[in-house]
């Protein structure tokens, strides 16, 4: 059973990541009152990119992008999708938190090897943004850990199926709102699209990628979006469970399939709400982004943490 | 306008001034251009709008044209009888076209003189940077002169390059 889960989990994440990229382009096009590309357009792009002969800048240039892909796939093995969790250990949440940074690190390594000043600007912006949103993110996760008294993310999902979603429970409501406020920064959509700004810095860290490296970069982008939303759904929206009604009347195989479907539906709803914000806002500058993230979401997360400590 | 005309005529000789609606046309010998321009700048005409050139091949002369005007906040000093634009013209010989730069008086003359050097072949002494501004190739005759035959140049340069089969 475990082997099937280890193979199936990254495959589901890959397909969902690409589906999110295509869904983003289609919904943005419909908001702009035009038809868009078909939803499977990222797959066509990746097929085309794999058949182009790109230029490589050296050994670290190629290995950096593979490192970031490896980091993202490793994080997916620790995330529960429904009741499927291939590597569920006691301290799952902390492992996710620090392995999540391997993605930007890999791209920064390979970008340093490419001799382009646009890459350096893009990477510095990416790391400043990552530094920014880690502060409220850690406060939120501290609040969740204190409330449920456990670090294992599978345990958190199971407790939510028994006692209701975290987003609805009173001590964790402020932390949930703070997480919603920094979710565009984690995903890299507007108003925090400073990293991959196409017009200002010629698409930032991916300016020297062509051919198969750009295909890996696109896959990495899709996986990043999957991880960001999956963490939110698992911590605050109950994971792959609909108030615990499944465990009572179905067996485990059907329950896992239904769990995956419910999980994906919840992710799509959160992603579409994020897309609506993406369609309306322009792009912040990096100092405006820092000023925004360190004022309101940090304050809300801090107040949420204090409320949780007081209640327990 | 009359007062300004009298003032200029009294300070300079070898000069020819005509006055139209709001503009004043001054033709002067090429040796007196620098003193005339600093004189006009002190009178309040501080904006050098354009430096241009006309090619007169029959008389074997190039005519350099400076257009000066006054900024808006100085308009209150002038009454309606003063000029709005002053056009200063000199003529230099065509064969060895050398002239003196006016960057000491008007600092924004640098790109205009660079353009005239590239397109008409006039050399300005004292200019810090007389390098090409628009064009990439080098031409034997400067392109804006009237004896530069563009069709002959195109036939001889571009149509001689063979197509790749």
């Amino acid at each position, binding site marked *: 059973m475990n082997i099937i889960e280890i193979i199936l989990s990254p495959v589901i994440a890959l397909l969902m990541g690409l589906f999110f990229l295509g869904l983003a382009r289609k919904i943005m096009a419909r908001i702009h009152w035009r038809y868009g590309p078909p939803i499977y357009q990222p797959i*066509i792009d990746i097929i*085309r990119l794999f*058949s182009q002969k790109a230029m490589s800048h050296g050994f670290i240039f190629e290995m950096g992008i593979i490192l970031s892909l490896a980091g993202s796939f490793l994080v997916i093995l620790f995330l529960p999708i429904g009741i499927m969790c291939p590597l569920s250990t006691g301290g799952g949440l902390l492992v996710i938190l620090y392995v999540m940074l391997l993605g930007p690190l890999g791209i920064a390594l390979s970008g340093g090897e490419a001799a382009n000043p646009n890459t350096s600007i893009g990477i510095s912006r990416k790391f400043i943004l990552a530094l920014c949103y880690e502060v409220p993110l850690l406060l939120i996760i501290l609040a969740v850990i204190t409330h449920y008294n456990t670090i294992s993310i599978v345990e958190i999902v199971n407790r939510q199926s028994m006692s209701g979603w975290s987003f609805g429970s009173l001590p964790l409501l402020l932390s949930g709102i703070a997480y919603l406020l920094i979710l565009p920064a984690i995903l890299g959509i507007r108003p925090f699209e400073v990293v991959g700004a196409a017009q200002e810095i010629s698409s930032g860290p991916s300016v020297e990628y062509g051919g198969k490296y750009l295909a890996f970069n696109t896959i990495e982008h899709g996986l990043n979006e999957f991880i960001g939303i999956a963490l939110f759904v698992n911590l605050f929206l109950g994971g792959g469970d609909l108030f615990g009604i499944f465990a009572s009347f179905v067996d485990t195989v059907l329950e896992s399939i239904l769990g995956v479907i419910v999980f994906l539906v919840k992710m799509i709803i959160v992603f579409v709400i994020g897309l609506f914000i993406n369609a309306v806002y322009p792009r912040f500058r990096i100092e405006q982004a820092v000023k925004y993230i360190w004022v309101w979401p940090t304050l809300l997360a801090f107040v949420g943490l204090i409320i949780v400590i007081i209640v327990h | 306008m009359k007062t300004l005309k009298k003032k200029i005529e009294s300070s300079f000789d070898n000069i020819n001034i005509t006055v139209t609606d709001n503009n004043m046309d001054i033709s002067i010998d090429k040796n007196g251009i620098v003193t005339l321009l600093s004189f006009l700048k002190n009178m309040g005409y501080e904006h050098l709008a354009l430096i241009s050139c006309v090619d007169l091949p029959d008389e074997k002369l190039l005519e350099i044209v400076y257009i000066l005007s006054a900024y808006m906040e100085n308009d209150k000093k002038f009454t309606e009888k003063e000029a709005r634009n002053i056009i200063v013209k000199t003529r230099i010989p065509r064969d060895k076209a050398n002239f003196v730069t006016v960057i000491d008086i008007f600092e924004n003359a640098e790109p205009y003189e660079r353009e005239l050097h590239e397109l008409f072949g006039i050399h300005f002494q004292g200019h810090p940077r007389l390098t090409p501004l628009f064009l990439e190739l080098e031409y034997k005759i400067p392109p804006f002169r009237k004896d530069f035959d*563009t069709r002959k140049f195109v036939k001889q340069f571009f149509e001689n390059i063979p197509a790749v089969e």
Partner: protein
Amino acid sequence: MDRNQIKKWFKSPAKMGHKYSLHAIYFCTGCGIIEIPPSITARWDAERFGVIPVATPRQANLFLITGYVSTKTLKAIIRTYEQMPEPKFTVGFGSCPINGGMYWDSYNTIKKLDKYIPVDGWIAGCMPRPEAVFVAVTHLWTLIDKDMANGYIKYREKYKYYRANQEKVFGTLDWPPLFS
């Protein structure tokens, strides 16, 4: 469109990929670039054909040369074209790359772009409307299907003739030859 025919995808996925995902580099040559933003925005939507603009030549597939090409621009065009990865397609817009157009007797513009980089197709007009852009894209699909859009192979095989033509215009070039 034969985008829905699964059998063709399995027979030659690379060709179908090149057809339906043409990313054009956003290089604004000359006066024809005024017709590209209308064909990208909402009224004449180019994204449903798979055509979007990208910011760098390393990610691009398609090079649109819109408008007249002066000698300074030709240097930039050659350097950009040589940076693009291999299966790449060029389309000349307007009548100026075809035979000089309005500037046929000018001392500073080149007359036929085909002598310096290989061009796969031309679009007539001064400037062509956005509907003409889409007709060009669909014609390029037919050419890719029949394996006739092979400008990049011609560049590789006849590189010394192209380089000789480029050196005739500029004298010596700053960059070394691409294919030795």
